[in-house]
């Protein structure tokens, strides 16, 4: 009984802090979303304006789904390859994947601007072998490339963590029972790495769908994402109420998506998604 009291005593300050700085702020967002920017009285004006931004929202979802799928296709072989190395090499390669995550993502994205520009590094290399300047920057492709580049480690790390845990005896058993390499992969390895795939997809999708820096730097006027719109409402447009309404929509979208992912995953361990 005393232990329970201690537990309540130790955890209450934390719970109060989290309520004050995560739940209440979300309430404030809802309050701003439901009040008129000019008069401050309750209104649905912001919610009515949301319809205008449906194409932008749709575009954000399409781009970030595309980048999550590309990350999976590129990240799976890497994670699989790392998991098959010797333990010391595994640790080293894991570090190499982590390292870019620790460096300023603003500057790294800016380096891509230098690479993709019309007079950029890639185009000057291409012109040497006689291929005319390609239009790479300010295209949807460039935005998706930026997302894939920035969030690929978030795919590789959880994938690696699940693949490395697969019991090697299962693979040997499948081989003994007559599976060839492709069958072993399709029937044993791939199904067992589903949890990693799902958490990787979520970890790429969530930051991609809400980014504003990548689309500002690598995209053009037709690749505006929902994050851009929110940022502009707060930092330039001075309509925080509309920005708040859009943030609510974004939050709901992410909750629905992670909910769907969790449903497919089946096992909802407390502790959630973490590398």
């Amino acid at each position: 009984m005393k232990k329970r009291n201690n537990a309540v005593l130790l955890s209450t300050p934390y719970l109060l802090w989290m309520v004050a700085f995560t739940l209440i702020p979300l309430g404030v967002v809802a309050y701003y979303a439901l009040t008129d920017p000019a008069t401050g009285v309750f209104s649905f004006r912001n919610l009515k304006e949301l319809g205008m931004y449906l194409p932008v929202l749709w575009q954000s979802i399409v781009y970030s789904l595309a980048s999550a799928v590309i990350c999976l296709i590129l990240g799976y072989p890497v994670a699989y390859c790392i998991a098959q190395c010797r333990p010391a090499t595994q640790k080293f390669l894991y570090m190499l994947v982590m390292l870019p995550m620790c460096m300023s993502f603003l500057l790294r994205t800016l380096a891509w601007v230098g690479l993709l520009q019309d007079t950029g590094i890639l185009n000057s290399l291409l012109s040497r072998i006689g291929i005319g300047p390609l239009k790479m920057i300010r295209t949807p492709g460039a935005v998706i490339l930026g997302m894939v580049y920035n969030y690929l480690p978030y795919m590789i790390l959880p994938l690696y963590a699940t693949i490395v845990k697969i019991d090697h005896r299962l693979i040997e058993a499948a081989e003994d029972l007559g599976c060839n390499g492709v069958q072993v992969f399709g029937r044993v390895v791939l199904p067992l790495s589903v949890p990693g795939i799902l958490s990787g997809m979520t970890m790429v999708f969530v930051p991609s769908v809400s980014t504003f820096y990548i689309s500002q730097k690598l995209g053009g006027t037709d690749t505006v994402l929902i994050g851009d719109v929110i940022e502009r409402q707060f930092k330039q447009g001075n309509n925080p109420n509309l920005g708040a309404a859009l943030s609510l929509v974004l939050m709901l979208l992410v909750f629905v998506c992670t909910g769907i992912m969790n449903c497919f995953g089946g096992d909802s361990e407390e502790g959630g998604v973490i590398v």
Partner: protein
Amino acid sequence: MKRTNRILTTLIFIFLYIPMVVLIVASFNTGKDITQFESFTFQQYARLFQDSSLLELLGNSLIVSVLASFCATIFGTVAALGIHNLNPRMRKAAMTLTNIPMTNPDIVTGVSLSLLFVFVGTRMLGQRNSLTFWTLLIAHITFNLPYVILNVMPKLKQMDKSLTDAAMDLGCTPVQAFFRVTLHEIMPGIVSGAIMAFTMSLDDFVISYFVSGLDFVTLPVEIYSYTKKPLQPKIYAMFTLLFLLILVLMIAMNLIQVYGDRKKTQSRTAGI
């Protein structure tokens, strides 16, 4: 099959490191343009140390991230101990609350905290300037806490409960048992939580961008406002130095781990 996989992996590692190479090369360039290499120089490094404005910003970032991760580590560890002993229903509620900042997009966390601070500061307290160093610190502690808790909780779960009972049977008070037994057992979780919190804090741009005021700005936020103007090349010099620093730190940690593992297996075989 295996070979193609290996080639693909190498290519993807190259893809991950190309932009860094571009930035490092740019730090030795006399010209300002990242796309054209004019000639080799160390001048950018000299400029970085002559003009202390960038170093000051880096200092600001370090102050926030050290303070925030330190507070979050202690606060989070205490909270994890409490949550671990709560009844299951309360524990589930606490973990759901912990997961909210993890699943919410950064921009939503940033926007919601900034609206809260402005709402409380301007409307309720009547301050003119409601976004300060302290709001930035609160925001950083808030998004650091879940990392600490999610790293410490599994260690608490793995821990053998009879260890603390044994310590208390042998005459420890509960507090002594905590410091001599429990803390030792969960230390790896605390350390990895603290490191994660620190790096997240140091690298954070989106949340800081929304909650920081004009009088205290961290490095990433300032870099963002730089990137709207032509960039000063000395920033590439700073990037290169930070890159080297982190690389050395990571390799050192790696070697210590590998060495530790080897020692462990050696002592185990010796024991048999």
